[in-house]
């Protein structure tokens, strides 16, 4: 995880493409996406494709479970801020609109995120909230929004 986070930190610095700099962070797009024409052959990617496939295998192993268990045991859960880490903070965001952490945010994206995030958190403890199509089957259309929320700027056509 440490390595991943270092990579992440490095990636956040890079805004613009640029072939030399940080190819690593988009390698899977160049190798797994893009147009393929069936009748043409493709260079063998032995060794490289394994990098991305491994990601899916690692997720559900006993080693991962043990690692999670140990990491949880090590957590300092007594710190006052812990209990409110995000549901609390983001809850404030939605309550107070542009105050708090979204102060200065211009796009409305932070509010939408906070709202979705908070809804998800609440739903975990409330089976009655019917919002089935909200999380993740790739075909979402418009994000469900609370009436009091600021709408994000609609900039697409």
């Amino acid at each position, binding site marked *: 995880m440490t390595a991943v986070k270092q990579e992440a930190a490095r990636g956040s610095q890079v805004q613009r493409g640029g072939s030399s700099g940080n*190819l690593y962070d988009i390698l899977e797009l160049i190798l*797994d*996406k893009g147009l393929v*024409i069936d009748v043409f052959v493709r260079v063998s990617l032995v060794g490289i494709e394994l990098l991305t496939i491994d990601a899916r295998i690692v997720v559900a192993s006993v080693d991962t479970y043990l690692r999670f268990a140990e990491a949880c*045991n090590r957590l300092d859960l007594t710190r006052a801020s812990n209990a409110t880490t995000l*549901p609390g903070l983001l809850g404030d965001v939605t309550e107070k609109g542009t105050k708090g952490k979204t102060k200065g945010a211009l796009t409305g994206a932070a509010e939408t995120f906070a709202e979705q995030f908070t809804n998800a958190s609440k739903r975990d403890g409330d089976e009655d909230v019917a919002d089935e199509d909200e999380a993740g089957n790739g075909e979402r259309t418009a994000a469900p929004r609370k009436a009091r929320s600021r709408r994000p700027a609609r900039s697409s056509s």
Partner: protein
Amino acid sequence: MSTSTFLYGIVSGSHPKKLTGIRGVGRTPGPLRTVAADDLAVVVSDAPSDIRPKRRDVAAHHAALEALCEQGPTLPMRFGVLAGGDDEIAREVAAERDRFGDLLTRIAGRTEMNVKATHDEPAVLRMVLHEDATLLAMNDELRDRSGGDHDSRVRFGEQVAAAVAERERHDSGAIVAALEPFAVEYAEGPALAGTFLNCSFLVERENVEKFRAAAKDIGRVAEGYLDLRTRGPLPPYSFAGVHTGSG
């Protein structure tokens, strides 16, 4: 491998196709050239016999496409597509002229922005423990027993992993919902280790800065809990093939 041709991308006839100065793949790259296919053109170069997915060649492929995309709509090929020769390319691309023409229309004036998100592990673990009293109690109990026995730890860790996966699904949904208004459509990318969201958005070029600002806003509000990395403008790799979720 005998002589063959390496494909970079497909462009329309009206694309400027300024190829001088663009470096191709290979140790001693040959010049890029175009092969006409109906009213489209395919940007190619001779393929070196030792073509491999090396950093140098992947970078050259990507850089060539970036240069072509700057000039006009370009359908990026996946890295490493090889054809027998120019005649074969002209024939096969012309045969699917309408499909490629539609794809070029779809990406015209637009670009790909890729967003990856990673949780801070301690933060997400705290989150799932605080969200579920049962997990929190199990954690306390195992800690009191100095970690507990192997089976208990595996069982506990499995439940934590499931809760984290659920959290990843929710958070992915929240990020996509927040960014989607700034994009035309989006496509999920391949799963990557340590990254719970890998999603590419097709964005109008004039909205790139807004999209970037939106991603930055989310990154700021969730700072310490997740890390959001935005890359782009990129050649529209994720929108050069199968149509996926639209926004």
